[in-house]
């Protein structure tokens, strides 16, 4: 702190600390805490509270209806067609068609007849009285709804324990898929990283790295769609096979590469290749080339040089790359969604998405994502223990 003020002066140091604090609390701690809290909270949305919200919605519809009628009475000549209620879509009900258990069914809307002023006045009075009654009722019901009694919100593990068997299978399968992607990515990236790291000084390594980075200037979704075009039934890959005469489009032949887990794996490996290549490249680059030559000079085969010298040296980099690839692929939603199109085994990230935005159950969605996070962490720690990589090695 003192060192910071000395180097940057008071205002700048204060700025730094404020920004770090905002980042730490606002962007990391608070969202996480709120999600964790949600995960352990059960919101019972059946029964009383559900009925309450339906009733409130209906009352709002009625209130809108009355307001329209009042407007019509004030301008008797301009008999406008009734505007559709803004609440209608959310409730799926026509505004003027009350349900049988509507407590105000008897006062439902009629076209305001143009008649003598006394009659109109009486009608207006009646409508105003009803409007007041409806407003009071809404206020009353809303008080109940937000009050502690009505909303059944309690802490419990139910969000986790209520995970269905199907969801649990997807959960386990996703961890396995992510592992497959990680292993595939390693098999692809290790030779690349080794080649770049040992390409020698100067331009060649720089060019290779540039070639690796340039595709990443393109949006991830576009890169995924590019793969869809390659793997599509009438896509690039099948077109080449068609041109070579391996398959015949006109006979309706063609491999369905997309919508399979293989395609999802391939695209994911491509999507996360850099996260694997760079850490491995960085560690291999620090390896003294003489060690490779010494091993060769002592009679070691290429395989032995890699298993005994290069890979042990690159282990921290491999660990970092594997962790990043594993976490990213376990949590990836764009790739399975776009490439898989629902015709491949689901990934757990898709289930979580549906919990949040289709089942409209944020609490269970939060619980599912927390479960995935914890499982990934446990998995990573286990792998690190098995491969004897410490946190300190990774920090290097």
């Amino acid at each position, binding site marked *: 702190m003192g060192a910071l003020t000395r180097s940057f002066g008071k205002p700048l140091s204060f700025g730094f600390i404020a920004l770090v604090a905002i980042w730490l609390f606002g962007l990391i701690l608070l969202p996480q805490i709120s999600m964790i809290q949600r995960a352990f909270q059960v919101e019972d949305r059946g029964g009383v509270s559900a009925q309450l919200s339906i009733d409130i919605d209906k009352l709002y519809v009625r209130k809108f209806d009355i307001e329209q009628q009042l407007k019509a009475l004030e301008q008797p000549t301009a008999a406008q067609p009734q505007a559709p209620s803004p609440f209608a879509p959310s409730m799926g009900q026509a505004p003027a068609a009350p349900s049988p258990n509507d407590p105000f069914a008897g006062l439902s809307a009629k076209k305001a007849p143009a008649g003598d002023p006394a009659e109109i006045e009486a009608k207006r009075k009646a409508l105003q009285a009803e409007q007041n009654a409806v407003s009071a009722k809404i206020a009353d019901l809303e008080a109940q709804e937000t009050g502690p009694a009505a909303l059944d919100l309690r802490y419990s593990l139910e969000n986790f324990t209520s995970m269905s068997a199907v969801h649990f299978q997807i959960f386990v399968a996703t961890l396995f898929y992510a592992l497959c992607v990680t292993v595939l990515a390693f098999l692809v990236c290790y030779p690349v990283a080794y080649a770049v790291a040992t390409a020698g000084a100067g331009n060649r390594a720089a060019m290779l790295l540039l070639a690796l980075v340039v595709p990443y200037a393109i949006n991830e979704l576009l890169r995924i769609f590019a793969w869809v075009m390659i793997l599509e039934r009438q896509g690039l890959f099948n077109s080449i096979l068609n041109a070579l005469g391996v398959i015949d489009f006109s006979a309706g032949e063609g491999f369905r590469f997309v919508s399979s887990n293989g395609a999802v794996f391939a695209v994911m490996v491509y999507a996360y290749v850099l996260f694997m290549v760079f850490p491995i490249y960085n560690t291999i680059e620090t390896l*003294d080339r*003489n*060690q490779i*030559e*010494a*091993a*060769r*000079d*002592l*009679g*070691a*085969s290429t395989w*032995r040089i890699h298993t*005994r*010298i290069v890979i*042990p*040296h690159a282990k921290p980099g491999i660990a970092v790359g594997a962790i990043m690839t594993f976490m990213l692929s376990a949590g990836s939603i764009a790739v399975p969604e776009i490439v898989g199109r629902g015709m491949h085994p689901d990934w757990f990230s898709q289930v979580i998405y549906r919990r949040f935005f289709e089942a409209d159950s944020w609490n269970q969605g939060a619980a599912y994502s927390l479960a995935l996070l914890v499982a990934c962490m446990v998995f990573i720690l286990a792998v690190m223990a098995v491969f004897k990589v410490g946190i300190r090695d990774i920090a290097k």
Partner: protein
Amino acid sequence: MHGQDVTLNGVSMRYPNGFVAVEPTDLTIRAGEFFSILGPSGCGKTTILRMISGFLDPTTGSIAIGGRPMDGIGPNQRPTALIFQNLALFPLMSVRENVAFGLEARGMAKAERRRRADDLLSLVALEGQGDKKPGELSGGQRQRVAVARALAVEPAVLLLDEPLSALDLKLRQHMRAELKDIQRKTGVTFIYITHDQGEALTMSDRIAVMNRGRIEQVGPGEEIYNAPATAFAATFVGEQNRFTGTVVDADSETALIETPLGRLSGLNRHGLKQGENAHLFVRPERMAVALNGHAADLDNRLDARLERRDLEGPFLNLFLRAGDMPLTLHVTNAGDGMTLEKDAALPVGFRRKDAIVLRAEG
């Protein structure tokens, strides 16, 4: 273990960018000898070493080890072992695993290679250090691990690329003796690359002096020092006083050259003819002060002035100037109190048989 001879037949190395690292070279290194290649950095000595070890393929010519041509044989198949300048020990393996690595690569059983590694560690006086990591050892100990690791594969030829250059002076002198000792015990051919003439002279059976991709002289240390074949060999090994001039008279034994300081004579080992440009070299310790009747047998005499006088203890370094030529003399400290003032006139001289006349290059 048995050393084998190494033959270079017209070997040269030209890099793709056109740089010629090694000119066509013929060289025979005898089985079981301690052979040094001595030269300044960039002279191509490491390139020769890498060609013998198989990491580089010669542009022309061929290399044979023990009479067997090595063309197309990779470094892992050659009967050589290389000790790198930075040693290149494997930092993640224990000392024992390092030493046993070559045996592991040859598929030797674990117990057997452990036993062999421990034998080698005791050969280099590192008993009981097998479980440490190389990083836990001192510089000299790491050096010995590198030697043991290279010897483990029972090479016929051990190639050493300035392995002592990272050590401090004391340790370096100690390791010289140890390397020589190991070489004698094992009988392996050692090819030692160095730019340090002291190392080359003390350890080697024979030395090759190399300059600009060319081997200028091959011979035992004494021959290199006492009878250099070229002006470069004369100046690179040890100190020299050099006089430049033209040969005015020459026969098969001696040559007389005309220099700005007068006519000087020396041995003519390389058959210089009258009229050639030449250098005459005399070692500082072969020159004498021509005072008090010491001058009787000096064939060449010069008038010089004393510029500086450093006492080294057993001997004195005298820095003189004859005309505009700087001269250096090492004279034994005889205790007769050679107390001379600066700028004192001092006649010096040397015998004909202590000087050598060599052809001036280019």
